[in-house]
């Protein structure tokens, strides 16, 4: 079961803070982050990469993006 971070409706830096918190505390190696702006998408991908996680998938939705990030070995 993947962890889900729902950051829709929130403006930056909130989605980044939530992503960083989840990366810090999760036991899982995959996190799904839901965002609804291009800014949040770009910033969340950068935040994950800077923490050594990989952006596995960005799925555009009607109301934003579902971003899957994966812990790198």
């Amino acid at each position, binding site marked *: 079961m993947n962890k889900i971070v729902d950051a829709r409706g929130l403006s*930056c*830096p909130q989605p980044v803070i939530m992503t960083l918190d989840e990366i810090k505390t999760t036991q899982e190696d995959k996190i799904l982050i839901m965002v609804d702006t291009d*800014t949040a998408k770009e*910033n969340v991908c*950068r935040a994950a990469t800077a923490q050594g996680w990989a952006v596995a998938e960005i799925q555009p939705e009607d109301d934003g993006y579902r971003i899957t990030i994966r812990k790198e070995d």
Partner: protein
Amino acid sequence: MLQGLTQERDPNVLVGLDRSDDAGVYRLTGEIALIQTLDFFTPIVDSPYDFGRIAAANSLSDVYAMGGRPLTAMNIVCFPIKELDSAILHLILQGGLEIIGQAGAVLIGGHSVEDPEIKYGLSVTGTVHPKQCLTNAGARPGDLLVLTKPLGTGILATALKAGLLDQSTTAQITGLMAALNKDAAEAMVEIGVNACTDITGFGLLGHALEMAAASNVGLRLYPKKVPVIPEAKTYAAMGLVPAGSYTNQKFWTKDLQIGPGVEPILVDIMCDPQTSGGLLIAVPEEKAPSLIKKLVAKKVAAASIIGDVVAEPPGKIECR
């Protein structure tokens, strides 16, 4: 925003609504022109006193960008007086007053309204000799471009909002944003320059593009020579880029040519909206060394030559 709003022309309006410049300029006599500007915004740092200083320095900056001298200021205040301690407002106004004093101007009034969100700034009046008024329309091919403050305050303010910024970097950006452009303006007026604007919400590239369009010239920028607060790069890579930076980038992209060797993160930083940013000055090449010397002597430490002005293609910027 002002499209469709028309008024009769007044020959004494030297800089008005039709120009994308920093302040309005109105000629009173052959010797004196009035500079008028106002700006106010929501808190960008936690300390009310520092917020007051920053907002005041930001408001006064437009007068300096026109080569003028601020004379009087009036407070613009929005404050939830029923919910928050009035001591907070007092600190904001105290910070503002300190900077007004540093500018050699006087506070002569103001207006406050009750508002759930704190906002503060100044309406500033200054003067300049009508023939010495600097605008963003005077850049000439061959000029060199000088920037007087390092970039990155938008990114670092976002990091501060996220609770990720350490105390010393917070103090550094607070000091930068509260620093008046007074010394830089005095230096450029003493040397004699061709054009000037201050870097605020549109970022370096946005305000430089306005200068290129207004002056009908092209600009070449050297991103590696642009002064940047070192921590801004780290936090931009961590995803703490304000929405305004992406918006700016998207908005200006058709007029920008970014060379293949330019680090993308530097483009983010050059589009980063600045609060109380530095002056971007176009100076004739032969005067550039003495301008830099004077700026450094006045402790405008970050002052750097970041590019030059070319004839073609007008209204565009090349970053190489």
